[in-house]
């Protein structure tokens, strides 16, 4: 097992999940509570990474963050180094790539909160932030758990965006999925088996946690 890659993947998934929850909670609340027609376009944009091939997304980001665009040049002058082929770049790519996995469960969770409860909170003077934090999030806590776990796992296992945007730099951008790819390419199937088993084990445990958390005490038909 490449522990350096394992630690980097964990760090990437943790940072990405934290950023995603901070972004996805207000975004999902806006999509559910907002009335503007433009929100349909925003929702489509947030769901785009679901259908876009990861390599395509990675390529666009590589070009956008590179020295040929004003955005890329601006970031380079701000940070002193380009975002591409760095851990920070991987975080940006991961946040965009896993955005729908955080937003969609939250939208589903917020949407089933009774409108009468939202009205009651508004009548009692709740501003949008209080409405979200004191009502929507507690009532949709299972969706929040699902969003966190799915974002984490999706980031742990991502390959295309990482390879395109980060390459394969040990300690900086080499994640577990890149290690697995390298091991297979080198015909080191024993090591590949261990790496794949680690990724599989984490996925199973985390998904079991989601389903255990979302299962009613008396069963689904109780």
């Amino acid at each position, binding site marked *: 097992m490449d522990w350096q890659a394992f630690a980097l993947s964990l760090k990437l998934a943790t940072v990405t999940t934290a950023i995603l929850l901070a972004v996805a909670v207000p975004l999902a609340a806006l999509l559910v509570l907002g009335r503007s027609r433009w929100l349909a376009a925003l929702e489509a944009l947030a769901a785009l990474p679901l259908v876009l091939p990861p390599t395509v997304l990675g390529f666009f980001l590589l070009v956008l963050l590179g020295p040929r665009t004003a955005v890329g040049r601006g970031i380079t002058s701000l940070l002193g180094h380009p975002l591409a082929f760095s851990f920070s770049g991987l975080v940006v790519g991961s946040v965009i790539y896993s955005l729908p996995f955080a937003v969609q469960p939250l939208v589903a969770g917020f949407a089933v909160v009774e409108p009468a*409860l939202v009205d009651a909170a508004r009548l009692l*003077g709740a501003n949008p932030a209080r409405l979200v934090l*004191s009502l929507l999030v*507690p009532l949709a806590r299972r969706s929040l758990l699902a969003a966190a776990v799915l974002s984490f796992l999706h980031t742990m296992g991502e390959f295309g965006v990482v390879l395109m945007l980060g390459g394969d730099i040990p300690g900086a951008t080499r994640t577990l999925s890149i290690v697995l790819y390298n091991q297979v390419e080198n015909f080191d199937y024993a090591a590949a088996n261990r790496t794949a088993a680690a990724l599989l084990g984490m996925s199973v445990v985390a998904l079991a946690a989601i389903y255990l958390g979302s299962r009613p005490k008396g069963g689904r038909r109780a």
Partner: protein
Amino acid sequence: MLELAIDARRGSFHLQVECRFASDWTVIFGPSGAGKTTLLRLLAGLDAPSRKGPDRARIAFDNRLLTDSPVGLALKPGPRPWERKTSFVTQQPALFPHLTVAANVAYGLPWLGGETESKQAVEAALELVGASSLIDRRPRDLSGGEAQRVALARALAPQPRLLLLDEPFSALDGSASDALLARLQIWLTEHRVQTVLATHDATDALATSAEVALLREGCLAALGSAAEVLVSERRRLLGRLGKG
């Protein structure tokens, strides 16, 4: 005094009301679908007239404009001085299921400041509606009538200036409803809170010495004392009692 001039469409439904509610207690009486809830939601600030189309709404309470759609004014719901200071209790109690009764009633009180002050306001509101014993319970442990009492306490705790009630006692039996109504009327008079109660039940409308607004198919058909406006309903009820 509540002054309203509303011309609003919701699909094929057209609400047209222009009047003044001068009494401390006004009952909006009308059959289901007459537009009572639509009117109360506009008064509460939960709905606004559509920006597109011919909708217009001008709502003023004690000479303070709450809504004036032609100039884009719509004060937000809420108990703070810059908000509408209007409470609205609906048939569905809509208690926050993850909070205790005490936390539900305190939800509208953070602007009060001190914890002691907030606690006192919660206890006073629960005592008024006869729900002091429920203070530590969760909404799932309440009966329909208990939940409606708590919802009423939650609406009264922030001390609104205008109270809107949409059939809020439907889950209470007759004597409990009458007793609560009597206590409530005294409290509202003492605290100078103007109240608008919507109901389709003529006995509710006749139980108080209120001003009655008769709403039919979105239009104000009559406004006056209960004895004048509900004369036909009164005869109908007396006739049913006579047959009994």
